[in-house]
């Protein structure tokens, strides 16, 4: 089947009434949590995982994807109007967006952010449609040795791009692998790391882990400081940008889209990195760098298109190789597993409706976001007035019911409490949980491929070095570690990852 026929199939799936509804729900929830500071897409998706259990797989994934890219839109609204990043990736948008708002140009800033995101989303989705298929066909030819080395490479990228220094990131990978391997062994049925508990013999459940590491510590951290929000008083007048805005914003949007799309494919890179890089590039190429920080329209267009492009292309490694490049994609991989779908190159051929339906829904969702959101901006701003002291209680109840409903077992809530405590400790120790979550998802696959590769080679470990592709992945991984331990590169990386 060629691309056009595939896309036809995709739109057929995505335009079915039920999937349109879930797409709309996804982008609305995404915008909402994007607008509200203190609750992000990772926490929300982990909260909604239990619900997706009861939906058809396509609808569930369409909704979760909508939350992710919807949050990138919503985050810019808060950044521009209130000077608070509603979403971590909108930190950079605050700089020039809020300045534009203070000059009475909030409307054009919002419009540029939304249109830039729309453009970036459409282009990046096209890249996803075009690149995922060849990549998946290539991956189908991989043997266990290639797969093992590829996943090792993915984990190393997650380490070097994680915040903080390398050794703790290695340790987090190790913890994630251990948690992923816990439960009975697939081949022998032997119990490992289960404390003798029957509840753990199926392995650690992903939902309490993700919620415990992200959602609950986020609530506690927000409760630690008293709430401060200053909502912009001025009315938003005139949404439409001027001709000059357009002339300055479109090259910035193009560059932002390019940077975001490229970084999205890299495992371990968050959309914050994309937004930040795009902003820095804009400042370097601009003929008027002194205007940055004073309300330059490029400073809104570039990071906003970059973070949206990044959100779309980060689906490429997940859907074509089965390797989640960041924490949100790890949650998507978790959602697929909950639905009984093993993420990997076989998804595209075995479930074309799922793959192409998701792609088509991203175009629909991006258009929905612009059409629905620009007129609704006043409502979103009004929602900013909901105090956190009410919000966190609702989030907490939702977490409880969600986790309990997985297996109707209180054990999962106990697990949630344990992981929440650990997650809070990690937050206080400045340890990024993303490598842990990635390793948790990849752990069982790594073990399976490692054992199969060694079985096939009769226990000869050089199999990983004698197969050229496998060797290439391992060398690339080694190269990354060496590169990022060089003092100069390390400094630049630390500067780039600094919030």
């Amino acid at each position, binding site marked *: 089947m060629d691309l056009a026929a595939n896309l036809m199939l995709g739109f057929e799936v995505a335009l079915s009434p039920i999937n349109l509804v879930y797409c709309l729900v996804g982008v609305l929830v995404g915008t909402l949590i994007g607008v509200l500071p203190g609750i992000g897409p990772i926490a929300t998706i982990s909260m909604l995982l239990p619900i997706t259990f009861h939906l058809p797989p396509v609808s569930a994934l369409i909704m979760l994807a909508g939350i992710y890219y919807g949050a990138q839109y919503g985050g810019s609204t808060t950044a521009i109007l209130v000077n608070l990043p509603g979403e971590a990736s909108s930190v950079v948008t605050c700089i020039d967006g809020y300045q534009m708002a203070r000059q009475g140009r909030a409307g054009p800033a919002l419009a540029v952010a939304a249109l830039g995101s729309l453009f970036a989303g459409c282009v990046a989705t096209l890249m996803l449609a075009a690149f995922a298929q060849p990549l998946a066909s290539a991956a189908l030819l991989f043997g266990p040795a290639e797969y093992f080395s590829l996943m090792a490479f993915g984990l190393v990228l997650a380490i070097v791009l994680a915040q903080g220094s390398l050794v703790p990131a290695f340790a987090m990978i*190790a913890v994630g692998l251990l948690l992923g*391997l816990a439960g009975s062994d697939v081949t*022998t049925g032997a119990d490992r790391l289960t404390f003798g508990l029957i509840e753990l013999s199926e392995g650690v459940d992903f939902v309490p882990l993700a919620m415990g590491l992200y959602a609950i510590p986020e609530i506690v951290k927000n409760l630690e400081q008293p709430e401060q929000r200053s909502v912009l008083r001025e009315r938003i007048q005139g949404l439409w940008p001027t001709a000059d805005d357009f002339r300055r914003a479109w090259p910035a949007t193009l560059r932002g889209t390019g940077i975001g799309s490229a970084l999205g494919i890299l495992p371990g890179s968050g959309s914050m990195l994309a937004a930040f890089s795009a902003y820095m590039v804009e400042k370097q190429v601009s003929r008027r760098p002194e205007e940055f920080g004073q309300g330059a329209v490029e400073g809104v267009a570039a990071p906003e298109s970059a973070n949206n492009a990044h959100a779309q292309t980060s689906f490429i490694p997940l859907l074509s190789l089965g390797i989640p490049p960041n924490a949100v994609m790890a949650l998507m991989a978790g959602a697929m597993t909950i639905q009984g779908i093993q993420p990997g190159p076989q998804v595209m051929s075995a479930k074309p409706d799922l793959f192409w339906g998701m792609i088509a829904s991203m175009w629909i969702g991006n258009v929905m976001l612009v059409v629905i959101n620009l007129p609704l901006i006043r409502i979103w701003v009004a929602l900013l007035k909901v105090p956190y002291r009410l919000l966190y209680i609702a989030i907490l109840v939702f977490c409880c019911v969600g986790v*309990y409903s997985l297996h109707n077992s209180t054990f999962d809530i106990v697990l949630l409490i344990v992981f929440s405590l650990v997650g809070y400790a990690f937050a206080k120790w400045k340890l990024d949980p993303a490598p842990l979550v990635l390793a948790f998802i990849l752990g069982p696959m790594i073990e399976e491929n490692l*054992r199969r590769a060694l079985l096939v080679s009769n226990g000869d470990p050089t199999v990983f070095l004698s197969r050229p592709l496998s060797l290439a992945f391992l060398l690339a991984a080694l190269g990354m570690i060496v590169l990022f331990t060089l003092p100069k590169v390390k400094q630049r990386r630390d500067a780039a990852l600094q919030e």
Partner: protein
Amino acid sequence: MIPRADPRAPSPSTGLWRRVGAPTELLAGLFFMALAALGLWLLRDVRLGTAMRMGPGFLPTSVCYGLLLFGLIMAGRSLVTAGPPLARWHLRPLGVVLGSLLVFAVGIQRLGLFVTTLLAVAVAALATPESRWREVVVIAVALAAFSTVLFVRALGLPIPAWPPVSWAQVF
């Protein structure tokens, strides 16, 4: 020279801790080492196997040794390098939030979703001094009704909605 800890850091910055250059990294390193030790102890009876036919214990045990090494490096490094002081743990929100999760876990099968939600919300509201009791009552009832309707009625989850008829079953 020993780097000075932030004098405002309210955490255990007395005596021993003040000598440690990077107390945060030391704690994390010790935590990882303890975790690795726990893993090795749990895996003591699981068959390792050989590289050719790996037993179920091969990879987890190797990962535990790796974790032990990384923890050791972090703990060792923390004694000689400078790092940020310990961040303060806010025990009230942490304890209360985890407490409300515990209330939910204990209550759900005995008291049903509606009553348990009321109780969990009442506990959760203690997490911040900003809570106002009138609001809490309203949101507790609203959330209890909403979650009962959504999860039990609409989604049809097999969660008990109400306490059992006889109170003898509760205790």
